[in-house]
């Protein structure tokens, strides 16, 4: 999956890919103070046996948890399941519904997106990407966007959560890269010196089909040097 990190104080964005095997669960957000956790499980392209080589992976299943309220939300391209203690509610992507729970608001836009608000100041959006009917190798997958993070504490971490704190970086020595449209540069971040590439990634919140290009500095090697530790540190045993 591709990650886009908005850096408002720089009016710029960073981006990277995490390449892991299908089935692996990555921790995206962990806030011990509010008890909010978001994990994502990867899926890959549906490949044939003789199809070898690297394959793209995507978020195929999302787990959004509020441990303090004993709430869990499981989102897959097929359905949305809310567990509230022992009670369970299931919604389909064909539903157009707003659920006003005392501590959670769910807004499902039929076949497009889901907005989840965990009280004031913590709002996420899940975008549903449906495969093209005739596309043999592609599977349906999900996108996850942090719309509002005010309620999350300063202890928040995770592959996305760590970037909710201000991050500083400097770009030096912009020079031509292997692609004439994408210059390379040296980035100084967290006392590391990285070679980065100017490119863009897609934001699908506005246009779920075509997306909107977000210009960003791409960090290679699974964001090594940008993220705290390495990406394997964010692998967790299960979605919940």
């Amino acid at each position, binding site marked *: *999956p*591709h*990650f*886009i*990190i*908005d850096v*408002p104080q720089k*009016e*710029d*964005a960073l981006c990277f890919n995490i390449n892991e095997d299908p089935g692996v669960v990555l921790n*995206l957000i962990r806030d011990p103070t509010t008890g909010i956790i978001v994990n*994502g499980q990867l899926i890959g392209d549906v490949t044939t046996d003789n199809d070898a080589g690297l394959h*793209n*992976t*995507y*978020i195929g299943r999302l787990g959004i948890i509020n441990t303090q309220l004993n709430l869990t939300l499981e989102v897959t391209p097929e359905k949305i399941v809310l567990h509230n203690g022992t009670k369970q509610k299931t919604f389909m992507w064909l539903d157009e519904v707003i659920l006003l729970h005392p501590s959670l608001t769910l807004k499902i836009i039929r076949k497009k997106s889901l*907005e989840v608000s965990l009280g004031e100041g913590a*709002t996420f*959006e899940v*975008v549903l*990407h449906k495969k093209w009917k005739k596309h043999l190798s592609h599977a349906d*997958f999900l*996108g*996850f*966007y*942090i*719309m*509002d*993070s*005010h309620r999350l504490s300063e202890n928040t971490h995770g*592959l*996305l959560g760590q*970037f*909710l704190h201000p991050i500083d970086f400097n*770009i030096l020595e*912009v020079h031509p890269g292997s692609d004439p449209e994408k*210059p390379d*540069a040296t980035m100084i971040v967290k006392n590391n010196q990285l070679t980065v590439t*100017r490119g863009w*990634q*897609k*934001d*699908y*919140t*506005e246009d779920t089909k075509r*997306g*909107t*290009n*977000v*210009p960003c500095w791409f960090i290679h090697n699974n964001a090594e040097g940008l993220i705290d530790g390495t990406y394997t540190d964010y692998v967790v045993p299960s979605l919940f």
Partner: protein
Amino acid sequence: AADVNVDGIDIHSMKIDCKITSRFAHTIITSQAVNRANVSKEALFDVELPKTAFITNFVMTIDGVSYPGIIKEKEAAQQQYQKAVSRGQTAGLVKASGRKTEKFSVSVNIAAAKNVTFELNYEELLKRSFGKYELLIKVNPKQLVKQFEIEANIFEPQGISYLDAEASFITNDLLPVMQKSFSGKKGRVVFKPTLDQQRSCADCPTTLLNGDFVIKYDVNRETPGNIQIVNGYFVHFFAPKNITRLSKNIVFIIDVSISMSGRKLEQTKQALLKILEDIKEDDYLNFVLFGSDVHKWKDTLIQATPENLEEARRYVRDINIAGWTNLNGGLLAGIEMLNEAQRSGTLPERSASLIIMLTDGRPTKGETNTQTIIDNVRNAIQGKYPLYNLGFGYDLDYASLEKMAAENNGLARRIYEDSDSDLQLQGFYDEVANPLLTEVELKYPENAISDLTQNNFKHYYDGSEIVVAGRITDNDLNSITAEVTAHGAEDDMIFAEQADVEETTKALEEREYIFGDFIRRLWAYLTIHQLLEKRNAAKGEEKANLTAKALEMSLQYKFVTPLTSMVVTKPEDNEDKTALADKPLEAEATRQSSQSVVPSYSVPATSHRYTSVDGD
């Protein structure tokens, strides 16, 4: 003078000659260049003109042979030259360039030792704002010019009360070079720096002449209005002074969707806080914020008492981002608030109500069909108050905002994303901050007048001016009487104005200041602008009729408008090539071309940016 010559081409002279008569400005930019090289070279004519102006003529003279531009119907011109376009032989000569200007550029190959003269003509009606008319000249000659000159001659029958000129590039050394004078009806500004005075530093081959040259002036106003008549056409300028200001009821409808996050929201807050400082105690106000949902500060409009303003400031400081763009919900909530206040009679009887809406994106929540939103807004307002739409940045449907504002007696304005966006917002508010009159109607003798431009105005604001022009159909008419009715702060008002045809014609007979039928051209300019505005809001047969009329007049008066193109022929080797000069539309504007100086790895701001994980 060796360093005047850049890459073989020597710009021998550049003259910007402007004649203003009764606010109607006719500008001619002439540039002469000589190829000093012994091979053929490309000469470039690259100038900027105000967006409000219409190009009227362009002539290129190469070694004594003239190649005039020909104004044609846009579609016909494009079809005729489609072949050339498809071969890549022609490109648009005019492009939107800045906040207030568009760029006209043409280049042509000049044989060794040959010369070329470029001449561009354009016309515009100067608009009064904050009590002054402003003429903007963009100066950027690219190299030192042996004879550089700006000359503006102003003739105002009412008499000039104030005249000033300033340039963004002016230095102390250059101050004495700028000559400004006015007396009675005439004013003059001349700027004619020598070659050495143009240098960016002593012995430098580069020029410091790069920036805005602005002339500001105003006229005497002994009477509330002034009617001028020449050759069967009249113009009525109406700008009464010493009128008690009306209190106003203002609803700010502000987009707080996620795309407004960061600097845009901070600048909006700064502007609103500054506006709150300037709001008068007898004004009423409220805020409606729309993101995914719609939030009202108060349920009803409330008076701007010091306590309420303090609370408003706290509210503005706490404005936060809230999801998607529910434009329809925000607008309808704000309009309904004013409607309800009017129904319940809670607002001062004599006051001006208005709505200022600010958005930076397209509707993404609630009703998203733009035409439905436009219909909803029109049906809700029903002509009762003007709606001003401010479009922040470029990621929006500006044409729809223009259409919606035009349908509701208001206007749309683009707020450019920049460090001064907050000042742009305040500046717009200041223009409408002091309503003096409402429901202004200017009436003329029906049987003697035809082809009148707009003569009904919802509001008249302090520092502005209402302009109405028309044609006199009665050849025996000795005088015109105008009657202006309006609602003021204390009473309804009727202003009467009379002008003697013979007398006003005589008063304008100072030939050296008059460029032909200027009142007729002023009338045509104003009529075309208003037809084009109405056309934006019209549909079907009405739209077709407005288009036909605007096109006919554009061709008749030789204006390059959005409906016409000017075909420019360029001699190239053995074959003439053609290029088209079109009028760029504000609604189609993309980010300013000045941003192209930003290195390619920089970030054009996007509408929505979240920290996220997704896949292609």
